[in-house]
């Protein structure tokens, strides 16, 4: 689509003459040379995924994904710089090499994966449209919502999914449609609708803004697929593998009970899976072939903890959001998070 000569002719030469960068070097080599990972996160902020704390440091599940990659590469989770991105500019920023990886609650879809020159490396949060209801309604499943009035934002796929779901379950509903999310929030809070629907991750943060957060309940049913995950540029398999396996390492660590606190003790574990994960033993080295150190996964867990810890800290019980693991539990506990083995 964009040829190099064209670009350079058009503007490049006019702006910067001298500082040409060797195009052949891989992303990992470039990152090692500059000394940090440049990571794109949610610039407008999404509670639990990418938002600033009181001191202005980025915190969240997506932010942890970036820090984990930095830990895998450098052994230091702080060697990462964040670029706050809007929804519009996020993919361009990745294409134009402004960032090395994108972790900005982006849904993995076929068109994005195949047409934008980017590759999704996995799913760090299985999101999807859900329902929130007032506890006083006495409803425990979305199947019980027959005849309910539902607050929804207009013009989004949310509205469409809502209609589809009720139709396919042979139920009726009254949609109370709002132009802006704030209006829908206020309407639900004042009791104009029985239920509120949007992406589940959003429901939890909206619930916090209600007058009485504890009076509302997010129902377990998820009626659409929104797998959120990090993405990298297409065409650099080594870098893609690193980002992908960093997530897997965090999952495997949770599976075998390796935590930030006990990772040093676990080095003496007899479990061969744990030994391979932490790079313990003669000739056990899965890091070097992909350009990392032997202790890459140890560094990830030492730096940010396993997936479960990161989840609880940012969006789960350890955070105000209190999102249940649900689909994001390990596959062994009824969820979808599944990592191939290290061997």
């Amino acid at each position: 689509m964009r040829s190099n000569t064209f670009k350079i002719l058009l503007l490049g030469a006019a702006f910067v003459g001298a500082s040409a960068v060797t195009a052949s070097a891989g992303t990992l080599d470039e990152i090692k040379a500059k000394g940090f990972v440049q990571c794109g996160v949610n610039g407008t902020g999404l509670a639990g995924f990418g938002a600033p704390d009181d001191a202005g440091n980025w915190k969240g599940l997506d932010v942890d994904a970036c820090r984990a990659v930095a830990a895998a590469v450098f052994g230091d989770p702080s060697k990462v710089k964040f670029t706050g991105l809007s929804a519009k500019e996020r993919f361009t920023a990745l294409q134009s090499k402004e960032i090395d990886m994108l972790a900005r609650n982006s849904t993995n879809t076929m068109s994005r994966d195949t047409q934008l020159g980017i590759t999704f490396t996995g799913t760090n949060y299985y999101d999807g449209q859900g329902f929130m209801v007032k506890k006083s309604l006495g409803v425990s499943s979305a199947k019980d919502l027959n005849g309910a009035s539902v607050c929804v934002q207009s013009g989004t796929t949310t509205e469409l999914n809502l209609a589809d779901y009720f139709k396919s379950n042979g139920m009726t509903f009254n949609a109370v449609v709002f132009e802006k999310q704030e209006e829908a929030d206020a309407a639900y809070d004042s009791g104009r609708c029985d239920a509120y629907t949007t992406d589940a991750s959003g429901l939890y943060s909206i619930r916090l803004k209600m007058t009485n957060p504890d009076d509302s309940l997010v129902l377990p049913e998820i009626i659409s697929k929104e797998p959120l995950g990090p993405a990298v540029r297409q065409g650099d398999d080594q870098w893609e593998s690193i980002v992908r396996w960093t997530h897997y390492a965090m999952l495997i660590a949770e599976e075998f009970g390796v935590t930030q606190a006990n990772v040093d003790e676990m080095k003496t574990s007899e479990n061969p899976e744990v030994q391979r994960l932490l790079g313990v033993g003669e000739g056990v080295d899965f890091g070097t072939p992909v350009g990392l150190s032997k202790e890459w996964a140890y560094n990830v867990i030492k730096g940010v903890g396993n997936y479960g810890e990161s989840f609880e800290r940012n969006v789960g019980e350890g955070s105000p959001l209190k999102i249940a693991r649900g689909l994001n539990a390990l596959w062994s506990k009824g969820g979808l998070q599944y990592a191939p083995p290290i061997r």
Partner: protein
Amino acid sequence: MSRIETDTVFVRRDFLEPEAPPPSLGGFPGWARKNLFSSPLNIVISLLMLFVLVWTLPSLIRWLFIDAVWTGTDREACLPKNGEPVGACWAFVNAKLAQFTFGSYPADQRWRPSLVMILFFVGLAWVAIPKLPRRREGVWLMLTAFPVLTFWLLYGGLGLPVVETSNWGGLLVTLVVAITGIVASLPLGILLALGRRSKLPFIKIVSVVFIEVWRGVPLITVLFMASVMLPLFLPTGVNFDKLLRALIGVALFTGAYMAETIRGGLQAIPKGQYEGAASLGLSYWQSMRLIILPQALKIVIPGIVNSFISLFKDTSLVMIIGLYDLLGSIQRNFSDASWSTPSIAPTGLIFAAAVFWVFCFSMSRYSMYMERKLNTGHKR
């Protein structure tokens, strides 16, 4: 007063003490009658306004101050009490104040932007208050040494640790963008305005095209081009600083507007002034500098300040390219789950509005003061 004489006319030699005006005309009742209740229409409007004030003020004051939460370390403090929502959550602003002022600037380095801000306001006062001595030197210092010093202090290098512009934020970014825009756009605007009135066709065409292109494009588009499109055209791996891109875009954009404001002033100068300057044997630049521009700029002070104020508020648009000005860093924090309560959004926005208002109102008052001061002699 003891002049009692026989059968003569009485001549009063002293003036009577003036009577106090009737109570209905003096003091507050008089003022109110003259200004608020002088005609039936005014009576209706005044009563309506009074009603609106009585209706809104108490609940506003109640929300802002009485029911407000002043202290606290997380959302627990601002949660609704006994099912009743609390007022403004000032604890949120308090906890985030450093971030609203400096963004993610490292805490141990915050003395640097603080120092820059103090120096700036001291320098500004020196230059802006007419009674102070050596103002001419002050202007030169502010235009030459101060920017260099600011760059060194804010960015770092030469012994100071480097703080990348992606860590700058809050009021710091608002001030950097606004002040750079203001300082760069004035000379640019003057040159473009003169260029547009030039008799040399090339200069005229270049100026006209520049002004019309930049004026015809929304600032959001300019920023978006600078942030999203430019990287696609540059050779891969070459990155311009985002803040620098925004600064250049804002300066060029405001320059084009400024040019048209100043051209209005140039056109208001009578032809005799140009001819008079020419007959004195002054060169083009001399006549502009000594005769035309001082008069033209004085006329358009309201227009120039209008542009400055609008630029100051437009700095919020840098939010869409991922820079966090004052408003951006406040909004970004609405999604901090540890503060998420119903009242933080209105509180944060009112805080932003108040800060913006203080700056814009100061600019407005200063411009009115300058107008009065410069309005010596001929009144039009």
